[in-house]
């Protein structure tokens, strides 16, 4: 384990918050893309 000293909480918090934000953004991006692809496919198959 890496030694983080007295600032362990700070560092983990920084990485944690960044990870949450990034994962949220990536999840939103991928989910929206999948939804758009699905809906477009449905529309194109219909007409």
């Amino acid at each position: 384990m890496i030694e983080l000293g007295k600032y362990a909480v700070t560092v983990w918090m920084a990485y944690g918050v960044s990870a949450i934000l990034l994962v949220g953004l990536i999840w939103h991006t991928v989910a929206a893309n999948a939804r758009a692809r699905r809906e477009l496919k449905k529309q194109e198959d219909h007409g």
Partner: protein
Amino acid sequence: MSIWEYANPVKFMRVSGAMLPWTVAAAVLCCVAGVVWGFLTPLDYKQGATVKILFLHVPAAMMAINIWVMMLVASLIWLIRRHHVSALAAKAAAPVGAVMTLIALATGAIWGQPMWGSWWEWDPRLTSFLILFLFYVGYIALWSAVEDPDSAADLTGVLCLVGSVFALLSRYAVLFWNQGLHQGASLSVAPGERMSAIYRYPLYLSMLGFFLLFLALLLIRTRTEIRKRRLAALIAREMRT
């Protein structure tokens, strides 16, 4: 074939579809490698373990600014050459930029807690990032408020133009207002004040990683926007007949 050809939605979908897997792979690789390498760097004699935040904080901060510049360029291309994909790319980039700004703000705030003794100080650097965030929010809000896509693209383009000037102006105003505590730029070209190489190389790598991550997200989000637009367009055409 000129670069403008990529502005055609069909061409863009084809080219971006081919690029996407490579971009995603490179982004994941560089991000993970840069951040892990950064995490393994030794402690700073003054700041202790908190230097490890640098490898998130600085790349995010740089991307936050650069994404706005990219949006400005894309908006100009739309306003002058009327390439529809360009407008959608600007739209797609904005949320990524906003999140990058948030990461820079959040990591900075967390870093400030032990260093300056408070979560938030009205330091010029931090303040101008807050202002940048406000510009991102306004830009995104305007895109979502205007229903007609052509008007929305035009209006947000004009806003981006005016906003850029005022973001810059605010930066100088804020400097006039408060002197601040934040670090200067130590990646500058002037020798002597450079940070040591143990921190510099992993920093470069994670900066590259963040850039590639942005590129990958931008491609995916632009493709999403194109699909959404195409869906809306097909429905609109169906209505009309």
